[in-house]
């Protein structure tokens, strides 16, 4: 059986950052991901990041992605793409299915001293009538099509949701040459940053507050040909008689994300429910270790945030496994973690961030009271 010091699952910002740290200190590190290319969702982020220079503000997401891949190579991280983890067993044996759906798949079992789960998050769906019709898709899916695959998912787009994802993806769809017809938002105010909303408004695209989509219209070709929207009351229920039909061929859903928890559950990590973080998440301590000894987590899997927090959490996980493998001293590890936690504090400020800091602290506190010390996978 193939033996590794560290197995990192998920090659997005968190997984890459964790692998780079572990690899840098000399751990034999294998990074696996089911997609065609590493980088997770970074390569579809064509906008410049916010924040301080310590967090590469002003740099576009895909440039950060390229930089990380370079660093991973320098840290001797081995990367397997098109590789899906399908089992995590006692003694850290892991079953990996490797290969394309269209080709021959290989089943490989490996054993890793430490495992870092960084599987990210998936988009939430909104279940109005006809929501399964081709042409209804996640906003992130539309973003992947234009920015990574360079193909438009459709020509006339209606966006549901005005959080930062809804706003940014709408603008990027315009940059790609799509006609964004309207943005629909159930709340009485726009969810995301005013700077993003202003770009949409300057382009003359209407943002319909206190409205929701109640139906996707299916055309003769079996695909979306429009949507019915309606005004909602203070309980977010559609008000009869306010329906309007909008012509479009694509409905993009930007209704938040939830952590991808399959492997965390499979490993038997203790969970907690956290609304602001998007649903069930694994309890973890300030070293990013779960209730299972030697199983670490990082990034959106631990609660939906953004790429910079994922990077920082990934680094913490990488440093902690290097410490547990005896590659760096506990003092060095603890000092480095302290610095990163300070940077995380600065990221989790402001109207959007502060709540997340409080929730993060609550998660770690619950870990201390309910778990204390991690135990091996049962």
């Amino acid at each position, binding site marked *: 059986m193939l033996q590794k010091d560290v197995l990192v699952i998920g090659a997005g910002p968190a997984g890459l950052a964790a692998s780079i740290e572990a690899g840098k200190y000399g751990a034999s590190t294998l990074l696996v991901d089911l997609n065609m290319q590493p980088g997770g969702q970074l390569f579809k982020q064509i906008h410049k990041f916010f924040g301080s220079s310590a967090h590469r503000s002003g740099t576009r997401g895909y440039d950060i992605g390229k930089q990380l891949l370079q660093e991973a190579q320098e840290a001797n991280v081995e990367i397997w793409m098109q590789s899906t983890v399908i089992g995590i067993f006692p003694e850290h044996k892991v079953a990996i299915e490797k290969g*394309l759906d269209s080709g021959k798949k290989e089943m490989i079992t490996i054993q890793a001293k430490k495992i870092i789960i960084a599987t990210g998050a998936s988009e939430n769906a909104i279940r109005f009538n006809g929501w399964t019709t*081709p042409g209804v898709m996640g906003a992130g*899916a539309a973003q992947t099509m*234009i920015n990574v695959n360079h*193909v*438009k998912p459709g020509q006339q787009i209606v966006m549901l949701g005005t959080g930062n994802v809804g706003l940014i993806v709408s603008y990027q769809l315009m940059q*790609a040459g799509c006609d964004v017809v309207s943005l629909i938002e159930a709340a009485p105010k726009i969810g995301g940053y005013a700077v993003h909303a202003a770009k949409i408004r300057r382009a003359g695209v209407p943002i319909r507050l206190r409205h929701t989509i109640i139906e996707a219209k299916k055309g003769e070709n079996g695909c979306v040909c429009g949507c019915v929207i309606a005004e909602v009351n203070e309980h977010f229920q559609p008000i009869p008689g306010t329906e309007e039909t909008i012509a479009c061929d694509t409905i993009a859903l930007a209704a938040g994300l939830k952590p991808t928890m399959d492997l965390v559950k499979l490993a038997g990590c203790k969970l907690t429910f956290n609304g602001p973080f998007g649903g069930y998440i694994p309890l973890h301590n300030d070293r990013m270790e779960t209730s299972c000894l030697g199983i670490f987590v990082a990034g959106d899997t631990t609660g939906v945030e953004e790429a910079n927090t994922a990077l920082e959490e990934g680094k913490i996980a990488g440093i902690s496994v290097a410490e547990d493998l005896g590659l760096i001293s506990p003092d060095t590890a603890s000092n480095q973690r302290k610095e990163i936690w300070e940077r995380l504090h600065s990221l989790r400020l402001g109207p959007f961030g502060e709540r997340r800091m409080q929730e993060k602290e609550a998660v770690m506190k619950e870990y201390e009271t309910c778990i204390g010390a991690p135990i091996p996978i049962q």
Partner: protein
Amino acid sequence: MCLRVKNHVILDCEHTGKEVEILVDGKVIKAFEGEPVLAALLNAGIKINRYTVKRKEPRGLFCGIGQCTDCAMVVDGKANVRTCITPVQAGMVIQTQDGLSKGE
């Protein structure tokens, strides 16, 4: 129909893979080697990838990153291939999937 993104203000949208042909339900379409099969289909205006088992309802792109399986098709005789994470190769034979097709 052409839905390729062109003249983008930030991105260089030139494909690095060479232009090849693939066969979709008996019809030849152009695609770039290495791009996801799904992207080539979208560009050709094909949005339905499969029909559901019981109600025979159409399904197409939903997540675009290999998680939801709504874009599964029969590729070179193999069923349940997620076209959003399967790269194009010259001469691929693609079929719309009917239910839980067993392929060939």
